[in-house]
Structures are given as C-alpha cells and as structure tokens.
C-alpha cells in the first residue's frame, strides 16, 4: 500500500500544471515561527494514494507536523457533499483517523490542530474513485482574463465519480522584443504565434509593430514562434524563443519560381501559389500574365514534404490544385493544368425549388473532378472545385464557367436555407439547378434517465460539399420540453453536437451523419463534475476560461471544446465532462 505524498513544502516553489492529483493541498508551513526559529507546519496525508470506494476498506488520513511548540491536539472532521462522514481514531495521539468511503467522489478531511504555529487548521480533499473506473484523457485548456499566458495540460478523468482538481497556472515570464530583418537589422511588423514545444496547441498570438515590438507573457518553456512578416521581401519563418530571447530574426529566405500553365498550355495569369512545409507558409504569389510566379520560403530544416496550393482566379472555371512531395525548391516548380480539362458555361441556367425559379439565389458549384486535373512539379495534384455565382432577378445564373464533371450544387436561398443537388456538367447540358426544400429534423433532448431536458443547444456543423461551399452551421436550442427542430439541407452531411450550456449533462456528438442520422432521441451522456479553484502564483484567477478538449484530435476538432466553463468571482470553477464510466 502506497502512501500519499506527505511532503512539507519547506521552501517556496512553483507548481506547474493543473493536476492536483493526490498531492495534499493542505500544507501549511512557515520558517519564521517563534520559539525555536525553525520551520513549522503541518500537512494531511492519506493512504491508499488512489483510494477506491469501498464499504470495507478504510481510508487512513494523518497529519504530519513539524516543530510543534507543545503536544499537538487534533480535532477532525470528514465530510462529503457537506454532510459529515463517520471516522475512527487510529492513533493514540489523535493524529490519524480512518473512515469508510462507500460512495465515490470528493471527501473533505479537515484537522484543527493546536500547538503547531501557523497550522491551526489544515484540510485536504481526497478524490475517492469508483471501483473499476474507466479512464479517459483530455486536454484541459485555461485562458485567463489577465496577462497570465494560456496553458494546457493533459488530464485523466476517471469514470463514475466527481473529482476536485485545482488548476495551478504559471504566472509566466515577460517576453519583450522586436522582430528584425536579419539582413538589415531593421525592426519590422509581423504576426507572431508562440507555441510551447511541449503543447503547441496552447499558443499565444501577438502582432509586433516596428515601433514597439512585441510584449506578452509566456510560460518559461522553449517555444516555436511562427513569424509572418508584415512587409514584402521577407519569408515567414519558425524561430525559437527561449527565456533569453529578445529579437526574432527573419530574412528573405529562398526564392522559388515557376510557371502556372492553363489547359491550353499557355501561361495562366491571376492564379495564387503558396507553399507550406513544417507548419510554415511561404509568401503568397499571384501569377503574372505569362503565368510566372515567385515565392519566398524559409522552411524548417528537415521539413522535406512540401505542399503546394494553386488557386485559380474566380471566373476561370478551373479547380484548385494541391500536391505534397519532396519538391526541389532550387529548381523551377511548374504547375500544369491537364489539357483535357474543359469548362462549360452555366449562363441562364435556372435555379429552382419546387419548379419555381429562385431570384438572387447564391449557388456554389463544388466537388472534386475524377481523374487528374493537373500536376505540380511533375506530381499529380488533387483538385477541388469551388465556383460561386448569384442568380439574377429571374432566378437564372449569369455567365459562370465550371469544369466539366460530376459535381454538387449548393444553393443558398438565405443564410439559413441551403440545398444540395447533384449537377453533371460533363455534357454542358444542365437544365436546372434544383434546390430541394430543407429537411427539418425534429427531436427531443433527454437526460441520461430519458426524461426531457430543455435549453440544450443542437448544432449541425456542415462537412463535405456544404463545408466546401462555406455553409455556416445551424444552431438551435431545445425548448423547455426538450423539443428541437433542426433545419438541414437534404443530402448534406454534418457533425452534430448537442451541448448543454448549463453543464447538467455532457455533450452528445454524432459525427459525419446524414440528415437521417441525426439523433432525434438525443440521450445526453452522464457528466462528471470536476471542480476546484484556478490560481496563478498566489492569486486566484477570476473569469478564466476553462475548456475540456479532445486529446487526440487534429485540426478544427482539436480546438472545439467538449465542455467549457469559466472561473467565478472567487476563482472557483465547475465543469461537466463526459463520464468515462466503469467496467
């Protein structure tokens, strides 16, 4: 049986991260006590270190004291949800007790002590686990309202029991300096993204000005800083920041040139070309009349896989191209649209719903073309089509070039009324663009016990062609009876989330579902309450944002909170996280 850590912190120190874990939070010490002049203090410890609810096995709690001035006396209380819990004395001097924690959850153990200076009382919270608790790992992100830097940590959530978890943040170091042109030493303006190497998602952003540079607080860890210069002629760069860094240097980087050619083989003007490697972009270039372009890049050493993106000008009717390879940037990087690529014009094509033309409807032709639409540096490129047009007052499209192929038309009749239809432009004989009526998904949000819960936000985030068309999500709130009505585009696919802003239940997520896959009986998962206080140094942090995030997700999903809350006016927080359950 292990003992919980009982260390009297005899010197001031910093606590990093938010995992209060099993470290006693009840240490009171002083090295300036009267009498012997030595260190004095006390702390509550307990064993086992990770106690599990049991109606048989007791939890032992004990106080260690340092340099009492007399014989200490102890007066104990144990409470759960503010109700007293019975305990028995386990030591003749009263310094130990034992208690049965039959129900999992946080137990508060308090000892009032005499004859120990600076330690008249000490208290700790013991998180008693549920038997057979499953464990799930999340990211806990805290964004203070003050200048304390945002911080993230991985936390383990154990199923079946609420827990108390203090969040202790680092106050941060002042990071002050300038961004300089390494060639001229001149100060320049730039966008800066400081990413701690150990947790890049806990980034901080700033704009540096040439006059005042940059200033922010950062945790004392090495950071990668993405610097995107605000002046021409300099390449974006990933530079290292340490606690001793002031100036961030960027230079002109390496020049990469090439030519973009259209399907006819002629230079293609107005296309945008940009390169990416290792999370760093190049400068962005627009092709000249002869299709030539030139970009500057300063990619991290070792970032050999380079992504090239080519975006044709609006109205060209050509798709976007993208390829990733170990391109040789020292030689010309040419882009060629396939000669077989042809377009057709959708001029005068009516946009209809129920056979009725829809004036001013906005249409996005989106999708991907079968086959190879072009190559970049000799590598076959993937393609994506996104062509926008707005119907005239008669509900007919103006001249709109689109590539030939099997595509989708996403029609927007209003910001909350969208439709999807297949469109085959292969034969350039599109009779109409159909915009079927929205499908309304009616359902009910429910507690885990199947009773209705109101005030739950149902959010349908478009994915696939809807996302490519830039369709915004639809959010509705269930009424007091739990009823919701979610209007969706028939044929669309969505990531659907049900979120309770009041944190009574955990979020329910249904990813990549068609309209028929949206849960109409939205049974919200049980939530566990994680609570505590948020501090930085000796200060309570009020109004700090606290989010629970996916630990393994990438991209947008990594930024989307599973649960969120804020610390209150006394620095306390409570957040409802999904219960991983028990075995």
């Amino acid at each position: 049986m292990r003992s919980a850590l009982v260390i009297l912190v005899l010197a001031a120190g910093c606590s990093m991260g938010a995992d209060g874990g099993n470290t006693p939070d009840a240490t009171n010490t002083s090295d300036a006590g009267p009498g012997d002049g030595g260190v004095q203090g006390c702390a509550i410890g307990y064993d086992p270190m990770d106690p599990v609810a049991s109606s048989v096995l007791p939890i032992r709690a004990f106080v260690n004291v340092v340099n009492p001035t007399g014989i200490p006396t102890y007066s104990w209380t144990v409470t759960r949800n503010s109700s007293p819990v019975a305990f028995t004395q386990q030591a003749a001097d009263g310094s130990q007790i034992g208690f049965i924690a039959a129900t999992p959850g946080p137990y508060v153990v308090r000892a009032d002590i005499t004859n120990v200076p600076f330690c008249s009382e000490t208290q700790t919270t013991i998180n008693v686990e549920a038997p057979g608790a499953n464990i799930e790992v999340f990211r806990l992100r805290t964004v203070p309202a003050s200048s304390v830097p945002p911080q993230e940590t991985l936390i383990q959530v154990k199923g079946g029991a609420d827990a108390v978890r203090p969040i202790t943040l680092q106050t941060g170091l002042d990071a002050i300096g300038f961004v300089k042109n390494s060639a001229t030493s001149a100060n320049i303006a730039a966008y800066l993204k400081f990413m701690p190497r150990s947790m890049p998602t806990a980034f901080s952003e700033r704009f540096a000005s040439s006059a005042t540079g940059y200033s922010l607080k950062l945790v004392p860890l090495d950071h990668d800083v993405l610097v995107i210069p605000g002046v021409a002629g300099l390449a974006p760069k990933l530079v290292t920041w340490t606690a001793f860094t002031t100036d961030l240097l960027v230079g002109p980087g390496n020049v990469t040139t090439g030519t973009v050619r259209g399907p006819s083989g002629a230079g293609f003007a107005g296309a945008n070309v940009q390169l990416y490697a290792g999370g760093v972009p190049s400068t962005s270039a627009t092709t000249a009349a002869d299709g030539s372009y030139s970009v500057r890049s300063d990619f991290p050493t070792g970032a050999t896989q380079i992504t090239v993106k080519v975006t044709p000008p609006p109205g060209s009717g050509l798709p976007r191209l993208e390829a990733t390879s170990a391109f040789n940037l020292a030689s010309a990087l040419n882009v060629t649209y396939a000669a077989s690529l042809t377009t057709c014009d959708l001029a005068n094509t009516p946009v209809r719903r129920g056979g009725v033309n829809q004036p001013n409807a906005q249409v996005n032709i989106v999708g991907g073309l079968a086959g190879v639409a072009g190559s970049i540096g000799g590598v076959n490129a993937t393609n994506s089509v996104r062509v926008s047009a707005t119907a005239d007052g008669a509900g007919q499209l103006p001249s709109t070039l689109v590539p030939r192929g099997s595509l989708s038309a996403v029609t927007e009749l209003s910001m909350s009324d969208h439709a999807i239809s297949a469109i085959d432009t292969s034969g350039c004989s599109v009779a109409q663009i159909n915009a079927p009526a929205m499908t309304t998904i009616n359902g009910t949000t429910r507690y885990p016990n199947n009773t209705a819960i109101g005030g739950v936000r149902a959010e349908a985030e478009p994915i696939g062609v809807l996302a490519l068309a830039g369709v915004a999500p639809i959010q509705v709130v269930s009424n007091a009876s739990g009823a919701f009505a979610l209007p969706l585009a028939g044929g669309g696919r969505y990531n659907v989330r049900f979120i309770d802003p009041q944190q009574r239940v955990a979020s329910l997520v249904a990813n990549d579902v068609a309209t028929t896959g949206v849960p109409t009986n939205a049974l919200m998962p049980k939530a566990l309450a994680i609570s505590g206080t948020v501090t930085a140094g000796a200060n309570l942090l009020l109004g700090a944002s606290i989010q629970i995030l996916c630990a393994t997700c990438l991209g947008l999903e990594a930024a989307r909170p599973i649960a969120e809350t804020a610390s209150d006016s006394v620095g306390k927080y409570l957040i409802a996280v999904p219960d991983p359950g028990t075995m």
Partner: protein
Amino acid sequence: MVAAQRKLVGRFALISLLAVSGCFYTETVNQRPSLDIEQEEPEPGIPVYREGDVTLRAVSHDPENHFVWFQWRVYACSDQTDCDQAPFDEQSSNSPFKIHVPKSRVDSPEAVQAIHVWLEGQDEYGANARPAQQLWITVDDHPPTIELGQFSAYDFVVTAPVQVIAKVDDPDDGPSVPQVSWKVYTPSNQPAYTIVDDPSVVLDKPPLDDFYEYGKLLWPSGTGKYTVEVTATDGIAPPTVQTIEVNIVPDRAPCLRTMTPLVAVAPAALPMSEPTLFQVLVVSDDLDPYPTANDAHGLLDTPRFTWSVLAPGGPRQVLSGVTGNSVALNPASYQPGDIVELRVEIADRNLTPITCGDGNATCSVIADNGCLQRQTWRVEVR
C-alpha cells in the same frame, strides 16, 4: 494617680535590668504590607459579561519595601449573598490576573451575575496583609451580537435575489436560541420586494459552530438602496439591532471578455491558412454570462450571439443560423488574399440595439471601451 505611679516604677525597673546586663539589642519589627485591587480591563463602569474577561492588578505597599506574594481567589455568585463554596479560579501570581467569567455557577445552574474576588498577600518575611482585599464585580447579560453579510450571484441586479446572512452570537445564554426578526426599508420610490427564508442556508448553531446563522433572500423589484434591519434578543438584555445596505442596480450590459484567436486591428489582419474556430470564451454579465452556470434560481441565461461575415465584393451577411459562442471559418471558402471580416455582437435579455456604424470594428452600447458588445476579426485568407 496610683496606677500612673506603678507604671513609672515598672519602666524604671526594666531599664535598670537591661543596664545591669551590659548589652542592649532588639530586632526591627516587620510591618504588614497593605493591599489594593485595581481593575485594568474593562475599566470600572464598563460592563462585564459572562464569557468575558476581566483583568485585575494587585497593588501592594510594604513599609520596608519587601517583596509581596499575592493569592487570588474568585467565586461565582448570583448576588452578594449567594456564591459558590469553591472558587472557580485561584492563582498565585504577581502578574496581572486575568479572569474568564464563566457562564454559570458550579453550585447551582444559575447564570453568574456577580463575581467575588479575594486578594491576600504576604511579604517575604511572612507578614500577612491585613485586611484581605475583596472586590465585587457585577456581571451583566451580554446582548446578542449580529454580523451581517450580503451576497448576490447576480451582481445585485434588479429582480434577482440577494442573499443576506446574519450571524448571531450569544455566547452567554446558550443553549437558548436568540430571537431574530427582520425588517426591510425600501428605497424612496418604494418598489415592491419579498424577503423569504433562504433554504440554501442551513441553520448553523452551537455546539458545531459558535454562532447561529440565518439566511434570507431579498427579491427586489426596483433599483436603489434597500436597508435590511436585523434585531436579535435573548430576552434579558436590550435587543441588538444591526442594518446592512443592499444596493440594487439595473441590469448591466454584457461585455466581451476573452476571445480567440487574436483580434487584429486594421491594417493588420490575422493570417488564416487552415479552418479556424473563432470563439468567444467568456462574456461577463449579471444575468446572461457565458459560459452559463447552472444557478439555483434558474435566472441565468446565455447571451445572444450574432455573427456576420463581410467578404470582398459582397455585403455583410448575418450568419442567421449561428446563435452560439463560436463559428468556424474555412479559408477554402474564399480566395487567397481575401480580407474577410468576421464580426460577433452580443446582447443580453434586454436586446439593447448596437447602434454604431457598420464600419466600426468595435462598439460599446455604454460608451465604455472596457465593455464591448461588438468585436471584429480581420482575417487574411492565405
């Protein structure tokens, strides 16, 4: 005459006897010290209460300046004719003597209404002070004390309840519970109100706590200063009255507090090369904060978020389906180089219109740059 002559003869005989022995010596006669008691705290005239402290000092005068030892004894009494047989405190001390007045006597269950202090002294040669000093101190009944506090989970906004807590202490009369009554004085315009027991406040009482704690909920329907008056009496001493002012304010405007990603101020623009979630992390407000807590009274609601996008070549478009605190932008929906404005505006349940011009990136309906209801991200698509 005969008696006087006999006395004279006697004295003469004694002197003659001493003179015949050839040596005359006598010890100095040790004189008795005298004593007095001075009351240091509380000063005489200031009431002494049960469970209170009294500090006395012994003052001695010894003609030969000998050191004087003191012996204190204190008896609990109902009056000057009825005291305990044994002292409740007894000390030999030269220091000031501190007495903690007990709540009740030992010989009877009666409350202590007086204490009888005895002080005796003896100098270092054994001479006892005469007479022993006595002091009668009348012990009064301590009126209850009241400590008032107020708390509002809703920033003292009108129509939301304010919790008023009264901690009533009556240490000398337990276990009887002091009687507590409440009164509310409204602002001059006399808005309606209710004041009810707060079920969330469990009555704390001795012996678990040293005090009695009472909670009330004041539900004000109008703004202004309310005065809550609490009276506590133990039935013996005069009632104790305490008041607390509760300042009820109008519903405040919500404020955007924390947002992500970084908001760029023109001419700067936030570079966006991958789908990005734009979030309002924290809105501070009395009744419509974000994130919203699950409050005991069900008064809190979420603020109303209105999102709009301004892309090149088009009008600002309100994302009417988006009512939450976040929205994602996908750069693939735009052309590289496009400057896109994403705007969020918030309102509380009052739906105060934001009247700033469309060109204003920020706006405050209360003309306070520290409390914005509009913020605009300026994004450069890359």
